[in-house]
């Protein structure tokens, strides 16, 4: 070969490589922390706050740092987290689900600070031992957990329908069935047509079996494990307990008799509340704060008597009178600190001190209620909204409720703890539901079935979870739809065990026994 074409080729290659490097270089800015500021990635439930807005400035002032916040819509958060982790540009502070497989791997490889011994030194950071354990990765805290009530499960019912049919809030699973039947057959909206149903069930988005869905709640009411339980020295998953089958027969009865929405297998959770508000269905099993959202939706539709439309009930007793309640994990995500940019212990202490300030009474009030005197005033133990017709104040309210509240650790949505103020409700009926929420959750907490595996992560589950998780989840829906018989469902469970489930259970049991 002659050298010249080769040289030309080499030249071309060099050029293209240069283009390549230039192309990569231009987008590469966020790798380093801003010298006097921090990069954060936080969940967003509405429109992103203006970084020059009043609320953002107030938070920066308390934090004592410039904050560059990447607000990511909640619906895309998990995907965005996984993409961000795989890139080499981690934010300094990442709000993240500590059980996310990619996060666990990255944390164990040293991407995030182990805060297990650090958190104790900061009195404002939440540190309930049970919840610390729940949010940990095999005993190590790779972030400051964001508090949530430990018991949030409840039933929301159409109060006007109950009253019209002369029914009371349910206490047992049989009561709930009777109510659903009456809601379906006895024309609760009084329009002379049989066009209503009882229970509204959505397509639950998570492929994981134990996902705090209405199905999980009913499983637990019947005495099946919440996720997992140790029975006679063995770790039993929710879907392999005799009580589980009782619960399935119960749910299937609702579906077979048409007491649920016909599109229960496909209804998106985004549109889940619509049938309730539109008067098509009358029962929702979900977190208790959903009641507030329902009130708001009714208010938008017709403000005259919206407060008379929602009733609430707690977890239900099963037919023999025994009661089991579905608790939640007590946290929602953790705030993890990247080792990439926060390099030294001193820098870490500085960041933790900032988080501690944001978790103090002053910080929690700012992140959960807003700016006192601007968008709310204090009335006894409650916060009351003021000037909420003023567009500038509405912006603050929006920034707080849809965005900054997601940065708070010591108080959160629907849970003011003792750090922030609870909102005073607009009507006595709403206030009554608010009180009932507290009473019911304290009562139900006594019968809560805790999942002993929450603090632990099985290696096999990290590797094979993507394949394993949907097997029982999809099989249950198919069984309920009548596409699988009980035998076929059990065969699917066996397939789950054989594909790695057995190993997952063994690993988790070992971790539990080690403590």
């Amino acid at each position, binding site marked *: 070969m002659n050298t010249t074409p080769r040289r030309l080729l080499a030249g071309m290659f060099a050029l293209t490589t240069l283009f*390549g490097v230039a192309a990569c270089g231009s987008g590469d800015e966020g790798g380093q922390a801003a010298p006097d500021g921090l990069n954060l990635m936080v969940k967003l439930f509405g429109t992103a706050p203006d970084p020059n807005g009043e609320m953002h400035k107030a938070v920066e002032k308390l934090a004592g740092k410039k904050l560059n916040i990447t607000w990511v819509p909640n619906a895309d958060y998990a995907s965005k987290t*996984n993409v961000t982790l*795989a890139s080499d540009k981690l934010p300094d502070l990442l709000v993240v689900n500590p059980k996310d497989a990619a996060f666990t*791997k990255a944390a164990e490889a040293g991407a995030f600070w182990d805060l297990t011994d650090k958190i104790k030194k900061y009195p404002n950071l939440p540190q309930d031992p049970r919840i610390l354990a729940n949010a940990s990765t095999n005993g190590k805290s790779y972030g400051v957990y964001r508090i949530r009530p430990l018991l949030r499960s409840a039933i929301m019912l159409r109060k006007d329908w109950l009253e019209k049919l002369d029914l009371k809030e349910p206490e047992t699973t049989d009561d709930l069935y009777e109510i659903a039947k009456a809601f379906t057959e006895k024309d609760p909206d009084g329009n002379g047509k049989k066009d209503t149903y009882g229970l509204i069930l959505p397509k639950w988005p998570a*492929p994981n079996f134990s996902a705090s869905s209405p199905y999980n709640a009913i499983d637990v009411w019947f005495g099946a494990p919440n996720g997992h339980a140790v029975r006679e020295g063995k770790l039993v998953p929710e879907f392999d307990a005799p009580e589980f089958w009782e619960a399935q027969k119960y749910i299937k009865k609702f579906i077979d008799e048409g007491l649920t929405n016909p599109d229960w297998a496909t209804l998106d959770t985004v549109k889940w509340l619509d049938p309730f508000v539109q008067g098509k269905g009358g029962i929702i099993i979900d977190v208790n704060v959903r009641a507030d959202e329902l009130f708001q939706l009714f208010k938008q539709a017709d403000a005259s008597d919206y407060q008379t439309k929602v009733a609430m009930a707690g977890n239900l007793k099963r037919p023999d009178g025994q009661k089991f309640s579905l608790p939640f994990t007590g946290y929602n995500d953790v705030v993890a600190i990247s080792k990439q940019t926060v390099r030294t212990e001193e820098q870490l202490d500085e960041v933790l001190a900032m988080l501690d300030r944001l978790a103090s009474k002053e910080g929690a009030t700012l992140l959960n209620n807003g700016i006192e005197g601007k968008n709310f005033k204090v009335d006894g133990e409650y916060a009351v909204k003021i000037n909420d017709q003023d567009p500038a104040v509405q912006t603050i309210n929006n920034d707080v409720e849809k965005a900054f509240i997601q940065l708070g650790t010591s108080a959160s949505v629907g849970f003011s703890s003792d750090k922030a103020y609870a909102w005073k409700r607009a009507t006595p009926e709403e206030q009554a539901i608010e009180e009932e929420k507290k009473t019911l959750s304290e009562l139900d907490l006594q019968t809560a079935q805790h999942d002993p595996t929450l603090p632990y992560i099985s290696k096999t589950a990290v590797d094979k979870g993507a394949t394993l998780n949907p097997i029982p989840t*999809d099989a249950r829906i198919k069984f309920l739809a009548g596409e699988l018989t009980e035998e076929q469902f059990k065969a699917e469970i066996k397939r789950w065990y054989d594909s790695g489930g057995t190993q997952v259970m063994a690993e988790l049991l070992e971790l539990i026994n080690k403590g």
Partner: protein
Amino acid sequence: MATDLAPEPAEVATGEPAGPRGRLSSRLSMFGRHRWLLLMLLPGLAYFAVFRYWPMYGLSIAFKDFVPFLGVEGSEWVGLKHFEDLFTGPDFGRLMRNTMIIALLTILIAFPAPIIVALLLNELRVRWLKRAVQSLIYIPHFLAWTIVASLTYLLFSVDYGVIAEWIHSITGGQKIDYVAQEAWFRPIIMLQTVWKTTGWGTIIYLAALAGVNPDLYEAARMDGAGRWSQFWHITLPAIRPTIVIMAILTSGNLLDQSFEQFWLLRNSLNADVADVFDTFVYYVGITQGGYSYATAVGLFKGVAGLVLIFGCNWLAKRLGQRGLF
């Protein structure tokens, strides 16, 4: 290839000296002669180098246990572990079956649809009607899959679907949940595909049909050929090369199902038929953070696609048609 006897006008245009007589000096002068053309080639080469070839470096994580923080370099090599998991795991059979069945349906239904529509349009003699129909059937191409999916739910949902309601009022009996049942998943997917892609697909065939010499038809009519004979002996042979090229190009994309289309229609009840390689890669890699496994699945799909396109090209040549390369 020996069977490739058709004239090859395209080859001439590349400016390469044909046959073995091209010696080093002539090659050299070729570079000199075409230096501006070659310069213009650079951006294209750069595009492929940067956006097509450089990212292939990332494929190496299919053979590693990729840990985000450690990066591609730092992650541990695990050889073929992920491929073993894929081929021995519970997903592979289902993914392969679903992908292949959809591919087959695409060849049988979605591929011929634009050809048939183009031929029908070609026979239309009313100019304005032809134009109007053409413009109307292009429209769905410009709608995103999310909109197509929303329309599908609006029309076929068991609770409020207009068409579902309508069919039920005619046939009576049990209401059918079209968007949730396994049996209806593939028909609905094909319906969506045909509705969305057919119109746009006719463009290339209409262009080929426009290029047919009218003298041929005139001569055929003189010889007493009817419309059917004209179609069979003139029109069809005229667009045959186009059909073959399109078939080969399609074969390369057969395993690429439009991800959104499947993802948006998938639910627990139809998951067994709805999971294809593309949705699985997204689900495992992006939502579950199983980067390496997802890459292995994607790599397998890529290799299978490559085999398909070479296979079809070979087949086309064996059948006496012109291949793509």
